């Protein structure tokens, strides 16, 4: 038999040895990198954060996938290291491996991401604006920022494996960051101005008889916070209730097979006993995969949907153009870090920033299932491109800019 004594696979024993630098080894997370790479190549309307969310929600086989292997494929010994999954895939890791993989496979430039693609920031911003229950009118602004900063450019967006000079694009994070920048442009988000503006809009709404209501930041905040808190709490509980093992356990060798099976039997017995006691015997049927985690309907009369609200409350006319009433902007960071050295453009600490800003980051952090600091990094990047000229002139110690 070509299988080694301590592994059911031909090369399982190789995994016991230390990995040589630069060599890629297939792992479970890497299978997702493969999938994502293929999806990107085909320009499918799915982002990496969505893919990983589907994995966690169980729509994509990942945990205990060996249950579906044919009988002949007996996993044992060192194979367990590969196939026994005990952690959920991490966005950064899957993404970076995807880049390595593309280089390894010697792939050419990927198919163009044009402005009609789902992954283009204009498209993704529209989706996220809807999901975040923000006014449709904000889309004009996101497009403006995208254009100004040049991140809608097909050469910026398209992946060229091995090209070290271009910044690799995380489409979902980028789109979320654009929205954050737009919110900062219009509402400042310094824990003062946005509330004053909201009160002002509320006053105007009292006399506003025609057309849609003016968007009030305060109302939006209340609605979103409530939904977010409920969903976050549920998600936290789901994470604590994660079941990692399955009915078909893995065992290292034939010797400890009976031990493992006995233990499994006991686990099942205890789970049944306490499951009956708590009335949670069977888990509810998995809902179908959904692209939207939050949804808001304009048909609801409770006024919870802000899609159709108008931004007139925060805009003013100047020389025939609509500009923001807010004249100020604060930079997340005056100087960007060297990404190659420390891996980040900035180092986000919640206490250093306004609570409204943190709230907005938290919202997208929840939707994308990534750390707020990743979104913060992208926001920094966009801001620096946006205020490029002003930064070079400037006021090193004055971080509040006049636009």
């Amino acid at each position: 038999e070509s299988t080694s004594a301590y592994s059911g696979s031909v090369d399982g024993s190789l995994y016991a040895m230390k990995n040589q630098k630069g060599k890629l080894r297939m792992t479970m997370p890497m299978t997702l990198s493969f999938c994502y790479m293929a999806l990107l190549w085909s320009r499918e309307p799915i982002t990496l954060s969505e893919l990983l969310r589907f994995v966690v929600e169980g729509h994509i086989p990942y945990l205990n996938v060996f249950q579906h292997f044919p009988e002949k494929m007996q996993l044992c010994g060192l194979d367990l290291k590969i196939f026994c999954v005990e952690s959920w895939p991490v966005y950064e890791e899957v993404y970076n491996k995807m880049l390595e993989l593309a280089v390894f496979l010697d792939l050419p430039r990927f198919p163009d991401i044009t402005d009609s693609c789902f992954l283009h920031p204009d498209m993704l911003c529209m989706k996220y604006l809807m999901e975040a229950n923000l006014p449709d009118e904000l889309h004009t602004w996101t497009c403006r920022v995208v254009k100004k900063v040049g991140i809608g450019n097909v050469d910026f967006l398209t992946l060229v494996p091995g090209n070290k000079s271009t910044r690799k694009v995380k489409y979902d994070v980028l789109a979320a960051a654009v929205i954050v920048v737009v919110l900062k442009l219009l509402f400042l988000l310094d824990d003062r101005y946005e509330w004053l503006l909201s009160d002002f809009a509320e006053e105007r709404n009292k006399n506003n008889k025609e057309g849609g209501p003016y968007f009030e930041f305060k109302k939006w905040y209340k609605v979103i916070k409530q939904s977010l808190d409920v969903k976050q709490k549920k998600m936290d509980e789901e994470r604590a209730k994660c079941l990692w093992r399955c009915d078909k356990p893995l065992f290292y060798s034939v010797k400890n097979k009976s031990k493992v099976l006995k233990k499994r039997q006991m686990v099942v017995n205890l789970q049944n006993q306490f499951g009956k006691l708590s009335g949670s015997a069977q888990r509810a049927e998995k809902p179908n995969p959904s692209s939207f985690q939050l949804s808001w309907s304009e048909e609801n009369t409770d006024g919870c949907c802000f899609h159709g609200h108008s931004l007139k409350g925060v805009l003013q006319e100047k020389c025939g153009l609509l500009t923001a009433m807010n004249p100020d902007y604060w930079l997340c960071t005056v100087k960007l870090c060297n990404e190659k050295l420390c891996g980040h453009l900035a180092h986000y600490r919640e206490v250093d920033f306004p609570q409204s800003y943190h709230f907005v980051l938290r919202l997208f952090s929840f939707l994308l299932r990534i750390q707020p600091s990743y979104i913060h990094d992208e926001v920094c990047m966009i801001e620096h491109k946006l205020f490029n000229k002003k930064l070079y002139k400037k006021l090193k110690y004055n971080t509040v800019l006049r636009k």
Partner: protein
Amino acid sequence: SSREHKLNFRRSKEACLSYIQDAMLQKQWKRAAEFLTFYIESLEKDYSREPIGPSEMIWRIGTEILCHYSHGNMKEFSCFIEQMKTLGIKRYLKVCLEDAFHLLCNGQIDEAYRNLSLAESWRYGEQTAIQDKEMKLVQAYRGLLDYCNWSKQKNILLEHGLDGFADLSVEQEMHRCFQNAAVNLKEIIKIPGVWDLFVKSYVDMLEFYGDHNEAHQVLNEYAYNSKFPANPNAHVYLYQFMKRHGESKKSLISALRILHDIVPSHELMIDFNTMLQKSKKWKKRRLGLEVIFAALDYAGWKENVKAWSCLARQVKQIVVSEKHLDWIKQEWNSRKDWWPAFHYSHYLAKRNWQENKSLSYEKALVAGILLGKDCKYLKYVSHQGCKAQLKKFRMLKKFVNRHNHVYLRIS
């Protein structure tokens, strides 16, 4: 706080445990059971490096939940415990013991006895030696249950005895229980520890069979062996035994002496003082005064008429004889700063008079001697007493006035 989006086995189980903990602290047993269900698969992972492994967690948490939430279903509980026994061999006897306690708490004495007997016969390689202490406890508790049986048989025997019937089988059963119990109880009380219940049971049986020597020796050991932790009860048992068997005052006093040292506020201090006061030796009488003053230092004794009357009697006797006034002075020295506020406040004067006139009387008498005739408490009480035309309060006033010079010498 940024949410940690990385999730792995350990982290999710840690989170699960904290949900269980929260639910248990809020007595939400159903919710705790729900989360426990998801924690259970930790058993399939290696936690041998952790101080407390999942098997112990599940045993302890599961027991709590079932105690509070199994709707009194003992079968459910024992099914769970049986699984816990196989799960942690290193804890086997501990689990057996806790199971037995639980059964006893639910009145299932026979079942507990059976389980303990089974546990006694358990052998498992080197674990048997390692769990030696637990095994002794198992045997001790089985011995205790044997004593319970013995006690039951004894009551039957006494009943029949009254009827005039001698039941041989009951006697034999009793004796068998006694032997089983004695062997185990004797063993456990050899080990330094607190074994009140075991000692009492053993001594009870010995007394019944007339083995007073052995009983006395056991109680002596229990009270005086320095290896054993200081235990006021040990001295109480010894004292009570000696009293039952008419031992000399000298022995009784020496038995209570250490009790006074350990627990000066013990209720037996009254008996102690009473014995000491009557002694011919002045050292003992001196000790008596010390004992009663010390007892009244404690808030729990403030309204104890007996205690005050003991103090009053002794102090009165000293004052009348005018001998050993320095004793009172010595005792009063460390108390004169705080006893007035503690025992003789205006509020207490009113309350004591309202609730208990005897108490007022005794306290006032003491006050008169310690604080003089101008003491406010005394004045109030004697005024009230005279108003109510109670003779003894008039006498009190006279007495204090007559002996006021003593007060002046003491203060």
